[in-house]
Each structure stands twice: as C-alpha cells, then as structure tokens.
C-alpha cells in the first residue's frame, strides 16, 4: 500500500456557470493533518463534499483511501468520517442513541458498537452525559459528541469542515486538542478546512491555501511563512519615542535594510537581510541617539502569507463582488422623506 491517503487530480465542481472548485490537485499522506485554508466561499467545503462522496465532481477525479470517490463511493464511505459545518446529530435523541444510529448504518454488530460507544464517550469525557438528550448540551459538548460520531466507524480518514466554527474560546481549544489526540492516538489522516490562520498553523502539518476555487500555495506552515519572508530576512519592529528624520534616514541607508515602514510617529517596521541584521540595526540606532523602548522580531504570520499569495486579505471571496445595496427600513424611509 502506498502512503497516500487522498489524491485529487484536476478536481472540479461547477454550479451552473460558477466554478466552485477549479482543477485542484493535491495529495494527502497517511496520518497527516492537511489543512485547507481560505476565506468563506473559496471552495473548501465543496472540495470536502466531493471527497466525502456527498457531491459529484463535474470534472477531474479523486481517490480516497485508495478508492475512486465517484465509481467506488460506497467503498470510500466505509473508510471516512465527516464532521461537517452543520452538526450531524438529532437533538431529541440522547448522545448514545445518536451514536448507535450512525454505528448501525456501518453495520457494526451491537456488542462491538456498545463497547465502542462507551470508549468514545470516555475519550471525550462525556460518559456521564451519554443518556441525556443532545438538546440539553452546550455547543461545546455537542461538538465533542459530533466529533466522536464521525469516529464511530473507526475511519482512516476524517474530514473536518470548520470544526471550531461558532464555538467559544475554551471549547475551541478543547476541540483542537481533541483533533490532535485523535490524530496521534489513531494515526487518523485528517483534512481540515478553516478560515482561521491560527488554527491551520496550530494543527496542520501541511496547508493548502485556497482562493477562488484554486489552491494558490501548498506547503508546511513554516515553509509558507519563509516563502514570504525570504530565506535569511527578518522583520523587526521598534518603538522609539524620540524618532526623527535623521534616525530614519540613517537606518534606510544601511545596506542590509530592504525596507522601512513608519507605522506611527514612534514606531517603525524594518525588513532586513543577513544574520547580523539585528546587531547592525541596534548599533545604528544607538549611534544616532535613539532611545529604544521595545524591539520585536516579527515572524511572518499565515495572514502575511495569504496576503502575499492571493494579493488580498482574508475576507469572504463572495464579498469581492460589488456590494449589494441595503434594503433596510431606513433606506425606504429616506426615499419617502425625499
């Protein structure tokens, strides 16, 4: 067996004239957490839906766990779990009943299933709540059950579509921790979509940056950041209360310095090359009598990567369209007054 869990080739989905996913090709290794990062409407969810057999590709192909998502969809289904944007649970049933139903759809014998459900509930410390209805749970508790629901068939591959959307910070941390534990303990391959740079950075081994249906860049978080900064360059931020034109021009004249941006009257951002860049900067500033209050080494964030690669900030792809006029009650009132 190869060590490739998922492979897509020119995977494409069109809705009418709109291309949601545009000839996307990538591979996900076994045991990896692969991130699809991008704004809402970038095509992440559509890609996940095609890979999890919920939607048929318009063009291209994909294999998941070695099976074709289109031709062998039922084979694929046996090996995957899905945590979708909307929780897949019945509010009026208990946690155990929900797990039982979905377990039964995978033909798991009752004895095995009962044991497995107990184990999963213990895994997320929800065993006390097993026989309570989902509707009585907090959102965080619901999401924990929702995640183990996707594990009931012991999938090799788990799809997580915005798993922390709408959760409070504590639940978000819990779910991220849970995702990591599942990945480590079961060696489960995961594809995770998110629009949060921090989440992708924290969880994913490799990240595909999606924008307008295409993968704009694909690499490890570290390499992606490096690609923005260049190999040996770094960005420093200084806060200097007595900043003046002389200090500024002196820094700009240094050969190691690539660019200087003044952010406000006392703050500058300096991008420079070389291993001794920081020493040179400090020496020059001190020579000119600058009082350095703070100095920080700014690592490029994935936000910077996204900005650099896509040429626009992380915002909804949809919102790039011309803004629609609001038709609120006030707009109507204005008309009437006039």
């Amino acid at each position, binding site marked *: 067996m190869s060590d490739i869990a998922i492979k897509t080739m020119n995977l494409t989905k069109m809705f009418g004239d709109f291309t949601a996913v545009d000839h996307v090709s990538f591979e996900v290794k076994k045991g990896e957490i692969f991130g699809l990062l991008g704004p809402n409407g970038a095509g992440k969810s559509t890609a996940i839906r095609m890979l999890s057999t919920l939607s*048929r590709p318009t063009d291209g192909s994909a294999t998941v766990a070695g099976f074709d998502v289109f031709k062998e969809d039922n084979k694929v289904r046996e090996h995957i779990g*899905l945590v979708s944007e909307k929780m897949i649970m019945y509010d*009026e*049933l208990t946690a155990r009943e929900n797990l039982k*139903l*979905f377990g039964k*759809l995978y*033909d798991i014998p009752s004895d095995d299933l009962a044991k497995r459900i107990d184990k999963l509930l213990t895994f997320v410390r929800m065993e006390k709540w097993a026989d309570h*209805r989902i509707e009585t749970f907090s959102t965080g508790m619901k999401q924990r059950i929702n995640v183990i*629901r996707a594990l009931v068939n012991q999938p090799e591959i788990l799809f997580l579509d915005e798993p922390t959307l709408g959760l409070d910070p504590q639940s978000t941390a819990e779910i991220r921790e849970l995702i990591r534990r599942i990945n480590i303990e079961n060696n489960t391959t995961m594809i995770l979509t998110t629009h949060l740079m921090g989440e992708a950075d924290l969880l994913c081994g490799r990240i595909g940056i999606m924008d307008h249906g295409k993968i704009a860049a694909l690499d490890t978080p570290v390499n992606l950041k490096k690609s923005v900064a260049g190999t040996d360059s770094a960005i420093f931020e200084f806060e200097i209360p007595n900043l003046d034109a002389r200090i500024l021009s002196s820094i700009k004249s240094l050969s190691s310095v690539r660019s200087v941006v003044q952010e406000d009257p006392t703050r500058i951002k300096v991008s420079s090359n070389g291993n001794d860049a920081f020493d040179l900067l400090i020496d020059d500033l001190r020579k000119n009598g600058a009082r350095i209050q703070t100095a920080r080494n700014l690592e490029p964030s994935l936000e910077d990567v996204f900005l650099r690669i896509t040429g626009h900030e992380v915002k909804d792809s949809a919102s790039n369209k011309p803004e629609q006029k609001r038709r609120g009650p006030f707009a109507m009132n204005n008309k009437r007054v006039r």
Partner: protein
Amino acid sequence: MSLKQTLNHSAWICWKDLLEFSRSRLRLVMLVLMPLFMMMMVGFIFPSGSSISDTPIAMANQDAGVANVSLGNVFVSQLEAVNNQTHMMVIHNATGFDEIKNMIQTGQTSGGIIIAPNFTANLLAGKQGDITILTDQSNPQISAMIQSVLSGVIGQMGTQTGAFNLNQTYHISLEKTVAILKPYNVAFKGIVPGTPNYFEFVAPGIMAMVVMMSLMTGLPHAISYEKDMGTLDGMLVAPTSRWSIIFGKVMAQTTRGLIQGIIILIMAMLLFSVVVQGSIFLVFFLILLTVFSFVGLGILITSFSEREETATMVMMTLMFPMMFLSGVFFPIQQMPWYMQDLSNLLPLTYASNALRKVMVLGADVGAISSEIIILAVFGIVLLAIAVPLFKRAMNR
C-alpha cells in the same frame, strides 16, 4: 449493498424517526387529537340524516269551515297527534302567508303550513283540499328535509283519511281501501343490517385522508428538514443505500399513518358507534395500499423542493383539493360532472371508496379489485417517476 443490509439500515432510520417523534409529548397528543377533531367536526357539522326534530313550523289554519264543520281543525289536531309522538316540529300559530313570511325572515320558524280557506268546502264537495307548505329558501338543506318529511306525513294522513271515508261511505274493508288508494307499497332496506349514519360515511374517508396527510406532509418534512439541518449528510456519508433512507422514512411515516388510522377506527367504533362490516385485515391492507400509492408523490415533491418550506407549500396546495374532491366529506355523485372527472384522477378517491365499501358494505377483495389495481398502478407509476429524480437530487 445487499437487500438485507438495505432493509436493516431502513429499520434503524425508521427507529430513529419514530423515537424522535415519540420524544415530543405535544406531537403524541396531536396524533390522537387530530383525527378526533376531524371526526367530530365532519360528523357533527354536516346534516346527519333525513329527519328533522323540534324544527319550528308556523301553522296558518285559514279554513272557514262549512256550517259547524271544520276539517281544517281536524287536520291540525291529527298533525299535532302525530307530532306529539315524533317531536319533529314545534308548531307556532300564524294567520297567513305574510305573517309566516315574516316569521321565516326573522328566523322564528324554518317553514310553514297554510290550510286554504275553502279546505272544508272543497273536501265536502268531493274535491281535494289545498295545503301549502312554505320553505326557507336560504337554507336549502333544511327546506328539502321539511318538504320531504311534511309531504310524507301529510300524504300518509291523507291516505288514512281517504281509507276511512271509503270505508264509511262505500263499506269497503279497510285493508282493501289501502290497496285502492296506495296500490304500491315501497320499503327501504340496506344491504347490510343497521341504519347508516354520517360517521360511517366519513370514517373510511378520513382514515384514507389522514394516512395520505401523514405521508404527504411527513415524508418531505422528514427528508427536507434533515437536508436543511445537515443531518442527511450523516446518512449519505455512511455506506448506506439511498433506498434505505427513502424506505426507512416511508416506514416511519407509514407506521405513523397506520397508528392514526387505527385510532380513527377505534374512535369511530367506540364514540360514534360505527360498525365495520367487512374484514378488518382488508381494511389494513387498503391503508397500506393507500400509503404505497402516495409514497411516489411524497418523494417526487421532496426531490423538487430545495427547502422544507417549499415542500410544505407544495404539499398543502395539492392536499386541499384532494381532500375535498375525493369524496371524503361529500359524495362525489353530488358534484358537477367535470369535478367528478377530476376526482376520478385522484388516488384518494379510490382509497376512500374502497375503504368505504369494505367498512360500510362489507365488500370482499373481489368487489374492490378495480380500486386495488388502480391504487397499485398509481403507486408504481409515481414511484417510477420519483425515484430517479430523488437519486439525482441527492447527488447535487
């Protein structure tokens, strides 16, 4: 995907749906109340027979009499004697047409009887005595009933009087006089024992209708709702046949419809003294067949509707005409011909017809074979159209 697996998955999906349904107490209460209200409503608001009781009737005896004889008075006292036994009327005295007209207009009476001024004179002269019955045209059903009841009663009284006269005048025996005056003796007899009531007419129809309603509203709701909520994805992402989902949902809705059907049957028997003349198994078979004939339509609408709201709207639009056109509440024979043709296109018509024949008339399978075939064909054709569309809708 083996058949056994498919059925097994269906059973679990059905289990889930019924469990979900049973978790709401209000829904359970409604399960019983809905058919009860339906029965009471249609059973009580529609006229439930051809008799009248305590109906206010104005009586204007204008008979002038001849000498001291007033056959008008005799007639009135005879009518009162009959009424004392049957209590079909409450008789108010009036002077003539104008007063009765006023009384009907003000709603004091539902009709009137006028005995002509020359009533006695005519009768004594060997002519017919005139009696006029006035009716309230604003209420055709009551008028028709008063007309038929009063003309029956008065006709009967006339026969008796005639027989008495013949007997007195020509000394013909009373038995013979009846044969002379009323040579034809008419008797009414149903083909099954007992007198029919309106509940017996509506109960089978309501059963068919409720089964149809729970399927037509329940199925699109069950599927579209899950689509909206995202839970359908959970079933679609499992190695489960699409058939399992449809079949599981249909099973759950059928069970629900069947339970409601049984509740209606029990209520009709206990509360409204309806007697099931035919085989109870045939009744259940027909209910299941009704389900089958509507499944396709339910799935069809589900596949067309993107959202639950749309599905519900389409359902309602289709269901209301069906309810009224299928002879559930009114006999189809009372409708104009074009409406009758339309109602012959609806499966509910055949379902309620067949159920009625079995429950009221005690018909056996042979007697309703055409209905059974038509319902089965409806089901097969609609399913043949619906299933491919549903599968396509699932893979959007």
